[in-house]
């Protein structure tokens, strides 16, 4: 698998992501792509990692979405390429219009740095095929603006097309207001494009790929990506 990680000024979870990707690729390190690039090397997967691109100033991801490199990323996706956006990467994808909706300030107005459970809502993508439908996985939250918003028509369409990939849940799998950490509509933690190639999610599966760091519930996502891309 040839993976590339895009670096914006202020990106800070690129190492976490590189470690997770290398772990499932026999130690092969992903290439790092600078935000000012206008063309991309041959790749199977582009990752927009977490962090505070441009300091999260104005709106999270707004300035990064306008970077030169994003034109190439959009072309790559339109040609059927796989793009994964995590946390700030998800915000960038929505700001760039590559995924619908927007991420607003957490309803509690505070940064959330804690573990949380989420439920796998669909499994027909390389990102989710490593999980079972309805599986509960533990992930790391680290965001101040993860409150997913879209209008009702969009939400209904996402639900209808099976584009809701993950929902915040309790450890036993219930989804309710009480299990919703940031006010996201319908408890949405991640959504996927209609063609199942572009995934955005707020939590950090890349921080749980090693039991030493507290868990490996994120590993099936990365293993699934490698398998799916090899097939």
């Amino acid at each position: 698998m040839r993976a590339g990680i895009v670096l914006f000024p202020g990106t800070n979870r690129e190492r976490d992501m590189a470690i997770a990707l290398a772990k499932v690729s026999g130690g092969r390190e992903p290439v790092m792509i600078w935000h000012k690039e206008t063309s991309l090397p041959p790749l199977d997967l582009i990752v927009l990692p977490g962090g505070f691109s441009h300091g999260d100033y104005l709106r999270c991801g707004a300035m990064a979405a306008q970077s030169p490199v994003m034109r190439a990323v959009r072309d790559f996706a339109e040609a059927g390429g796989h793009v994964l956006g995590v946390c700030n990467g998800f915000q960038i994808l929505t700001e760039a219009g590559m995924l619908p909706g927007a991420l607003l300030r957490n309803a509690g107005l505070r940064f959330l740095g804690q573990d949380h459970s989420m439920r796998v809502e669909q499994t027909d993508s390389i990102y989710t095929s490593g999980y079972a439908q309805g599986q509960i996985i533990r992930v790391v939250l680290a965001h101040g603006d993860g409150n997913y918003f879209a209008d009702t028509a969009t939400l209904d369409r996402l639900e209808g097309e099976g584009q809701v990939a993950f929902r915040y849940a309790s450890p036993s799998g219930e989804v309710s207001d009480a299990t919703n950490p940031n006010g996201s509509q319908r408890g949405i933690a991640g959504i996927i494009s209609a063609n199942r190639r572009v995934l955005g999610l707020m939590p950090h599966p890349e921080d749980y790929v090693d039991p030493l760091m507290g868990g490996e519930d994120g590993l099936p996502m990365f293993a699934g990506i490698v398998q799916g891309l090899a097939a």
Partner: protein
Amino acid sequence: MSARPVSEKLAREFGLNAEEWGRVQTIMGRMPSFTELGIFSVMWSEHCSYKSSRIWLKELPTKAEWVVHGPGENAGVVDIGDGLTAIFKMESHNHPSFIEPYQGAATGVGGILRDVFTMGARPIANLNALRFGRPENPRTKRVVDGVVRGIGGYGNCVGVPTVGGEVNFHAAYDGNPLVNAMTVGIAPKDRIFLSAAAGIGNQVVYVGSKTGRDGIHGATMASAEFDANSEEKRPTVQVGDPFTEKLLIEACLELMGTDAIVAIQDMGAAGLTSSSVEMAGKGGVGIQLDLDSVPQRETGMSAYEMMLSESQERMLIVLRPGAEEIARAIFEKWDLDFAVIGHITDTGRIVVRHKGVTEADIPLGPLADEAPLYRRPIQWPVPLPVLDNATITCTMPTDQALLQLVASPDLCSRAWIASQYDPAVGGQTVKKPGQADAAIVKIEGSNRALAITTDCTPRYCQADPKMGGMQAVAEAWRNITATGARPLAITDNMNFGNPEKPEIMGQFAAAIQGMAEACIALDFPVVSGNVSLYNETEGKGILPTPAIGGLGVIEDAHVARGIAIEPHQDLVLIGET
């Protein structure tokens, strides 16, 4: 601020006493200029000169086989094996955090990060030791909220995990909270960067953010007591920009990968003044600065303002000949300001030029060597009598007492605070807040991990400063040991009241003695630290608070143990109860 006639009165306003003012005139052999007086006053402030504490700090043990650099550098450096070092320090931002809790705490984190990465280390962990007033004091809520959001706002953005800390509440901190921030970084042992300038003619380069009129005289403010007017008198508050800091970390580490740097120093308290004076002073050379080239955010800034500004996210670098283009390209890539603002000379003087005028010309030797040093009068503390258990009667059932204890401000869950920090970024955090007695952070690409903790129990220090100092060191040592790590060294943050009061100096001296004894007994030297005095509001001092930041190493991170008990495990109690 425009220049005013220099006089003894102005010197006093700048925080110099009559004797110090006399000494300035003797050194200069003439009336100093306004800018020169500004430079003397900040360099000789308590904050920069340690004039009250220096003689006592000498009592702390600072050496061990594994200590690479002890106190005197920007941060302490210890060998952790595998050709690596841990570089760490703790620093206070108490006064700014009371005036503007969010920005005060945020810039505190920014400052300590710079102390660590300026030595070539990539920061891998942040901790914070916080003391607030009573929870029922309305002001406390605002301060807690702002400080916690400020620490998170800065640390989360720069992408350094905040992995631990401690919090206490006590009426003595109502008007003077303590915000002590600690950063730990990792650097290869053969790539450590120091601040001593060298090489006559070498360029002095300014990088980072532009200079504004922020925090002028911050260092002298940090060396004065608060009174009711402090909030009006306060100089412009410094606003932190963690985004720029993140870029600065990456750009500096990238430049450190080349051989362009002779010396590097962050601009902390007293900004351009202390960084240039210290770099030239340590190198035994002279320095000439041309302020016209300093990147400026505001118009019409005077030499005095530029020399004393405490604008954040700035560094000073002495470059090797011919390295300018390499360095410039890196800082431009990261969208940071880069300017050659001077050069190293052989004069042993700092010369500051602005708009064709020499605004300052001071001999560096006397500026450092003749800085005031005080052996202030001391009244040794009399420890409070130890309570006799036999005289204490039980007034409530044990279970009820336990509940009350668990719910008390000093013992209740810290999750509300810790969950506003990102403990995981970097992907190396093995034990997060609440999981072990010390945080455990692995070193990427190695099996090794560091165990890091902050400890102090001000209550104990108040009852008996010497025992309290000793206990704080011992607790740090125990917390590290309890994870399975080998304790290596500590950093400290001495937070005390007004040193001109003999009883406060007594607390300080006694705490140092206790710490020194514990450090010697445990072979646990002090490699860096910070002193914050004058923590008083309207004459009332804080509890003596010698905060200790301890660091240890564990060869195999998998061996590290937390506090969670699993089913069917036995509980063993060690030591006398």
